[in-house]
């Protein structure tokens, strides 16, 4: 698939990012050249090769399912851009 300005716009939309016209132009060139590099894998014969999902081969380590104290709410909220009454504040979601 060719990377066009439409592709860039579609991707930006999926990523929830606005791009200026200049950014789109820059992205188009650099993304095209990176995708060209990624395309090189098409020439690799991977028949009968299982995808490697995890590079670590350890088995699961289980622990007891115990209730522990968690971090205090006000400490967590202290990093929020906006909070009120112990909750995050966001723009209205439901009309």
């Amino acid at each position, binding site marked *: 698939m060719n990377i066009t300005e439409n592709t860039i716009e579609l991707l930006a939309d999926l990523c929830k990012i606005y791009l200026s016209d200049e950014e789109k132009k820059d992205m188009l060139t650099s993304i095209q050249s*990176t995708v060209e590099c990624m395309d090189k894998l098409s020439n690799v014969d991977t028949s009968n090769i299982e995808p490697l999902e995890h*590079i670590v081969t350890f088995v699961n380590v289980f622990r007891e399912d115990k209730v522990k104290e968690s971090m205090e709410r006000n400490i967590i909220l202290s990093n929020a851009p906006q909070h009120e009454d112990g909750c995050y504040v966001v723009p209205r979601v439901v009309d």
Partner: protein
Amino acid sequence: MELYELTIKQLSDMLKKKQISAVEVTRSVLDRIDKLEPALGCYITIVAEKALQDAENVQKDIDNGTLRSPLAGIPMAVKDNICTEGIPTTCASKMLSNFKPPYNATVIRKLYDNGAILLGKLNMDEFAMGSSTETSYFKKTRNPWNVERVPGGSSGGSAAAVASGEAIYSLASDTGGSLRQPASFCGVVGLKPTYGSVSRYGLIACASSFDQIGPITKDVTDCALVLNAITGRDEKDSTSANIEHPDYTKFLINDVKGLKIGIASEFIGDLLDKEVQKAFIDAVDVLKKLGAECEEISLPSLKNALPVYCILAFAEASSNLGRYDGVKYGYRAKEYKDLEDMYRRTRSEGFGPEVKRRILLGTYALSAEQYDKYYKKALQVRRMICDEFNDAFKKYDIILYPTTPDTAFKFGTMTKEPMQMYKHDILTMPANIAGLPAITVPCGFDSNNLPVGLQMLSKPFGEGKLLQAAYTFEQNTEFRNSRPCLS
């Protein structure tokens, strides 16, 4: 010699003999920071008062015998993507410019338990995406060997601080070479441990199956000392290995006789700058003369490392960075129409161009239409690369090649063409793809007096062998004694 010039081992011995105090060492490094920081720009945040207070407290514990760790009282600094409770942790991004973590990363807790003195947080490429520290939202970091050159990246601040004496040692993270490449560019030692050796709890994720925290130090001995402190199983990181780690200082043995070293033929020759090639060949000769058995081997799958890395690391990053939405923490756009617009404006204003590029590329590779062609294919080739390494390590103890294709480049030379920047990490990516431990040690200088790094890889959890080989090389060459001339 000034205290800031010394190693952990030297300072620790002096502290034990009560020849110096932790406060004196900390002051010496803080004075060095005051002097050089305007020219080098290693730090995003400096916590001088806290450092001096901690040094005073640690000295009491050293004096009363409750703290015996070789790291006790030694001032250090960490890359700004490692969470430090109450101290800004920005990832060098506008997105996290006001973020103060409510907890310490496991590595920070471990270092504090060992009596380490935190000086501050080090500059990096934004969200660890870059190879020159030029994508930092805050500042440029300059290479102490030549301030017209980049320090490498993404951990440019971590490497430049150690090379210049602005920290005795540092912690950095390595996703595709982010620790080793700057260590090489700045003429210091850097070790990326085996994936799972060091807990990633509190490391702000870039590409989770590639990321690993490791030390940057002035020599291999210090590297073993820091590794002893930071490795180990952590129930807060389910990918941390449930194994018994040895005392890594036991591997500081000056002997490589009979050590089997494979030199990856794919990574020597035309790919390398001529002077890097020469320094590498000389380094191989040193190891041969010391009794190592070196021979060329072929690892043909390594030529696919770059596309595999671009697909998988960017895919993981795009997914990891989905969390930055202006709700729970981090930057939020000032003006917006509704929730959706807030998300979009926050992400558009909060992320820099390289981060946006990788989010777009990763999303492309993961999109339903392209998934099999890119993501699944890259996972298959990742297995081929791992299998090839596993086969090689049946015969060889160490695989050797340079850390970088050339030495530190000038500012702005690669920012226009991101693909050139990605290609620059071609020699460091394979260790992350296969989760292997890898170390870089200085092995020479080019005609511009810029350091060259020698890279050694070993099988998973083979850090001991790496340290032994690197230590032997270091003890039989003079490069560890070279430091940049900084007035």
